[in-house]
């Protein structure tokens, strides 16, 4: 009974419009950010290296290499500031957490794309 109340509060805020992306996929995350008084959309494109499960607490981490520097951003799955997530490419990986990408550079850090069936 009592956990139902929390489930209900959570479900009101959950986003069911998220695409079904997986670890290893390359995604574009459209984030609404406020600069001064103006609001604009920033795109963060990279590889999903981790998905954390949970209801309201679920999150994912996107990694990209920008000007030779690795950048990782972690987003809450249900964050309303994220306008949308777009899957650019599906990757073929054999790990659930791609932390090994952090120690790789250039060609070695590529992820094989999933073959179309």
């Amino acid at each position: 009974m009592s956990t139902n109340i929390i489930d209900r509060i959570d479900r009101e805020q959950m986003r069911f419009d998220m695409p079904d992306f997986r670890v290893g996929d390359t995604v574009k995350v459209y984030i609404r950010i406020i600069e001064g008084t103006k609001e604009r959309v920033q795109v963060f494109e990279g590889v999903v290296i981790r998905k954390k499960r949970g209801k309201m607490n679920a999150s994912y981490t996107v990694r990209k290499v920008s000007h030779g520097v690795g950048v990782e951003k972690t987003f809450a799955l249900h964050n309303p500031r994220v306008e949308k997530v777009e899957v650019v490419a599906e990757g073929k990986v054999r790990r659930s957490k791609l932390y090994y990408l952090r120690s790789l550079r250039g060609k070695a850090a590529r992820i094989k794309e999933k073959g179309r069936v």
Partner: protein
Amino acid sequence: MPNTMGLMGKKIGMTRVYSEHGGATPVTVIQAGPCVVLQKKTVAKEGYNAVQLGFSSKKDNRLNKPESGHAKSADKGGFYHIKEFRVDDPDNYELGQEIGIADLFKVGDLVDVNGRMKGRGFQGVIKRHGFAGGPAGHGSKHHRAPGSIGCSAWPSRVIKGKKMPGHMGTNVVNKKNLTVIDIREEDGIMLVKGSVPGSKQGLLQIFTK
């Protein structure tokens, strides 16, 4: 304990809510009220002004005779929890009146939440009193010990009140100035920012400021 009006409630659990502008706020969900006025206490009779509230109603066959006799004047049945709240003027309330969340609180208010902390059992000085402890390595053998507890020949005893290991928890804790994030009257629940003392399903008192 603050000398203000309040309600009794039950801790349901914690979650997070997003504000309009994106930030996530950790909140505790509290089932607060409805409470029923069982008795009014006045300066003339009892020496102080207060109202006695009952929360969480109890079946008639579970009441003993003194309980059912006490509940008779309000005529709303018996209650599991009965507590007093200090008010300026008890005549603003009537016996048997039901008080809900919306009567006392609104979104944005600050409230004090009072509850019995979870028991921690027998704990050392680091957890119980926040001592720093000793070095972990470099040959040190002084890790989580309290250190010296006083002088030697004089006074030849340990000063009273010295912080030492012992039982921790199950004491009443009053958490002050929590913001009310949301009130849902239809469910009888309120969301306050941050954590509150006690376990889930534990009894809480929520005081107005």
